[in-house]
Each structure stands twice: as C-alpha cells, then as structure tokens.
C-alpha cells in the first residue's frame, strides 16, 4: 500500500476540523461516509465509494484502535465499480442477431435490437466482477495536516469532498494559490507576471 511502503505519492491539505475531542467525532464522521457495497441485483448503481478501515478494507466499524495511530487518524477510501465492456456487449449482440435472423428469416427491427442490447448489458453486468480500489488517507490530528495517498486528481477531489461532508470540516489544498490565500493575498487581484509568461501585454493575461 502507498502509505506503508514504496515511493510516496500524495496530495496535501490543511483541515479545519470540527470542534471537540477527535475521539468522539472521528468514528461517527467516518461512519457517516462509510462505504456501502454494491448490490448489482437490487440496484442500478455501477459504482460505490466510501470510507473503510485501512487495514481491513471490508470493515466499517472504525473503532479507535483501528483508526488511531499516535497523533494520526488513518483510514481508507474505497471505490467499487463494475464496468461492462462495450466490446463484450457488441460481441454478444452479434451472436444474438445471427440467431434471431436464423429463427425469423429477417433482420431484427431497431426496437428489438435495442431491447436485446439492454438485456445483454444487464446480464453481462451481473457476470462482470466488481473492481475494488482503496486509497489511504492520513490525518495528523495535532497539526491538522491531511494527506490523500492517491495519484488521480479526480479521486483526490472526491475524497476531499467526502471528508468535508462527513466531518463538516473545511479542507484547504496545499497549492501555492491556496497557501497565498491563507496568507491573506487577494487572489482575484493576482495575475501572472507578464515578463515571465511571455504575454504581449498584461491586459491579455487576465481576461
């Protein structure tokens, strides 16, 4: 796992946490945003994401012993998804068309083809294995620095939004612009340095 070994890849945030003792709100907040497994039989959802325990990625009990390590809170973001390959649908549909034509001595009508395509997609969806990915999150409860151990910006944004929602916390990214803003800089007045960006005129940079 990224957090445990190997090269380190992470996005940095500063957190304004909820008030009170973290031991009280940590487990409750994680449970609010916990991972719910996909139910392909009963639900149309092809994707599910939420918090799980870091060492046991099926568990969502979030006991203090499972989440806290020293001054750190450690947990994971789990994404389960099922994706039916378009090529598989196409191949199955071709087989169905051949058997339809043999049986009825005519090609299927557009509506018949659309219905068959949907049926095939549903059947393949139930047979396709669910792909699971987990990403570590470390939160220093003393310094309130949070690291999301993931390379994909899309997933980083998803984790940040989920933490803000579940914890009622505010996350500030570690980007130069965010650090400048935290230091009191008025970002709306800040433009690129024309001499450095090679702009013909300063007015052309800030539109």
């Amino acid at each position: 796992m990224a957090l445990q070994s190997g090269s380190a890849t992470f996005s940095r945030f500063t957190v304004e946490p909820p008030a009170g003792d973290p031991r009280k709100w940590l487990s409750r907040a994680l449970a609010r945003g916990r991972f719910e497994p996909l139910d392909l039989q009963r639900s149309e959802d092809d994707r599910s994401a939420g918090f799980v325990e870091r060492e046991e990625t099926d568990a969502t009990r979030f006991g203090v012993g499972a989440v806290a390590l020293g001054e750190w809170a450690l947990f994971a973001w789990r994404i389960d998804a099922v994706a039916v390959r378009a090529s598989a649908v196409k191949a199955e549909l071709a087989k169905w068309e051949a058997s339809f034509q043999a049986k009825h001595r005519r090609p299927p009508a557009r509506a018949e083809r659309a219905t068959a395509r949907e049926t095939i997609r549903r059947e393949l969806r139930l047979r396709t294995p669910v792909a699971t990915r987990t990403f570590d999150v470390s939160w220093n409860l003393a310094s309130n620095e949070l690291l999301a151990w993931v390379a994909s910006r899309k997933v980083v944004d998803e984790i940040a939004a989920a933490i803000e929602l579940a914890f009622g916390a505010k996350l500030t990214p570690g980007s130069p612009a965010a650090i400048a803003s935290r230091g009191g800089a008025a970002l709306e007045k800040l433009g690129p340095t024309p001499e450095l960006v090679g702009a013909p005129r300063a007015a052309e940079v800030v539109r």
Partner: protein
Amino acid sequence: MSRRSEARSEAAILRGDAGVDGLDTAADERDAVELERDAAREQLLRGHAFLGRELLTWLLWRSESTEPLARVDGDDVGLLFTGRLVLRGAFGDVTELVARGAQAPYSAQVKRALDAGLLVHQARLRLEHGEKVYEATLDAEHLDVRAAKLPDLIAEEDDERLLERLFLSQRLSALLDALVGEFLAVRSGRGWSRKVVPELKRWMRGE
C-alpha cells in the same frame, strides 16, 4: 435533399441552431492553433497555476547557486532540480517542452526556453534538510507530491516504521510549504517587478 432532411434544416434555422447557410451557429470557428493557445492560456490561469509555475521557475533560478533556500526547525533546506523538467507556455508557438537529462534543468537550452516565455510546470526535485535527503516530482498547479523517495527508515517494527514514514512525509510537506512561503514573500514584495524579475530574465539570457 429529401423532404425530411429539408424539414429538419428548416426547423434548425427556426430554432436558431443554424444560419440560413445551414451551418451550425454555435460551431467553433477557431482554427487548431487558436484552440491550442486558448487551452494553454486556460491551463495557465486555472487554479492560479501561473503562481506555481513562477514558483518552480524561481526555485530553479535560486537553486543554481546551491545556497540554502529556507530554514525549517533550525536546519537549512537545500534544493536541486534533477532529471526531467516540463516547461509550459501560453503565448508562443510552443506550448510544452520536455527536457530530459541529469543536467537538463540548468542547461542553456532550458534557460532560452524560459526566456521565450515558457515556465516550469513539472519538475523532479532533490531536497536536503539536515542529513535527510528527499526526492519528489512536483506539479505547478496543485504542488502534489509524486513518486517521492523518502530518507531510509530507522525503525524496525511495522507500526514504528509507519509512524516514521508518516513523519517524513509530513516533514517533506513542511519543506515545500517553507519554500512556497519564501517565494510568496518575494512575489508579494515591491521588489518583485523592479528587481527580481529583471534579475531572473538576465539569468535566463545567460548574462
């Protein structure tokens, strides 16, 4: 033209989706070059990425002297750009340039490109803090840490090793914040346009 397609074009004209010449009114009439430049300009401004690019370019200039660039917890922070460097621009014919080679970041070719209005967008950095050495790839927009090499771990027990790794990751993050802090102090000062930028340009020109 069939009656059906004639009716379709007429309806599009009535809706205002197409002109009397039958062409899509919302069609993008910009050519490929303009589209590329607009995309490059959008990338420069998105999330104030220019600030990160100016930061990395400023760090490249300052690091050539091998003098420490900041101090964290009483120890100097030394910096060296190593290996691959990605430059991006928004106003010239070249929107991206990748330089590879151990000496590439400080080469005359890279300086010429910087002088032409490209800025450092992504770089591999080697940071020295006391006796610890870190390496990481950074991007200008988010300052996310990618493929970082942390100093060797001393602890032997699993939990202790994890805590040490967390500590080192946080320390790397603090070093980056210190460098950003140094840059922002210079960038927001009066001397930025009058003194620093001209000096930076002279360095790019090899003067």
